[in-house]
């Protein structure tokens, strides 16, 4: 699930992206604007196959997960954090996520019976 959060390099933000070809996006100031930019983002980057949600303007989810500018987590079936990626962009590792998913989906090892003491076997 993609969680769209506030812009990392908005043109009117504290760290603008000055690269050529970078999209010219202002930091949304209303939820409607944020929702609209999120839609453009998912469409432009061909990510529409992934489910996506949009963080509220209080940025609570972003803050709780310290997600800015980007970060990956895997939440296990038990509702606990199974993998916590490092802060992006350097710590943004889809490879690590793949490993974590494989581990999470592995069937649980069968619980082995405790070995029967030798004396009991003789009896």
């Amino acid at each position, binding site marked *: 699930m993609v969680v769209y959060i506030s812009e990392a390099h908005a043109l009117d933000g504290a760290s603008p992206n000055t690269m050529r070809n970078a999209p010219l996006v202002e930091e949304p100031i209303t939820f409607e604007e944020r929702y609209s930019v999120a839609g453009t983002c998912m469409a432009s980057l061909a990510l529409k196959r992934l489910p996506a949600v949009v963080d509220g303007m209080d940025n609570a989810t972003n803050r709780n997960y310290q997600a800015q500018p980007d970060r990956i987590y*895997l939440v296990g079936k038990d509702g606990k954090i199974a993998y916590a990626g490092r802060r992006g962009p350097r710590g943004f590792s889809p490879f690590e996520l793949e490993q974590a998913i494989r581990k999470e989906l592995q069937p649980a090892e069968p619980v082995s019976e405790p070995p029967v003491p030798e004396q009991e076997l003789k009896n």
Partner: protein
Amino acid sequence: MLHAITLSLILALQQDAPAATQAPTVWELLQQKYDSNGDFKISPKEHGRGEDAFANLDADGDGFLTQVDMEAPSWGPGRRANKRKKNMRSRTVQPPKVGTVAPDFELRVLMHEETKAKEAKSSERAKSKQQELQTAATKKPETMRLSSFAGKKPVALIFGSYT
């Protein structure tokens, strides 16, 4: 940041594509949107997007946005101050660790244009105009709660933005 992931792919595709119309510059975009009196400068009132955003763009700090601000180095005094503030704020909360309960959230689901169009079409077929209006007035936007997946399946959370 999600932009960075697919940038190389987009660039590769663009090499084969016919020449597209040139994208506007930052100044062209701002002037078109905010220079309501056409005097080639934008006042804070015309801009109307808050003090921080204005200070970030006003590289020479003269209280107006002009083409010169966009040609000047992007790190004007306002932007430097706001960057410091942002860094201070981001250090106050620790990220959740492995093995701890994932902080819950309930957020609005992003509906893609195709889905919206499909829903509108089916709603057109199925309901009368009055019924449709009533439904639209009472229908809540669809949300997703993280904890609703607990006990059912794991969830990968990919946080990011366009830039």
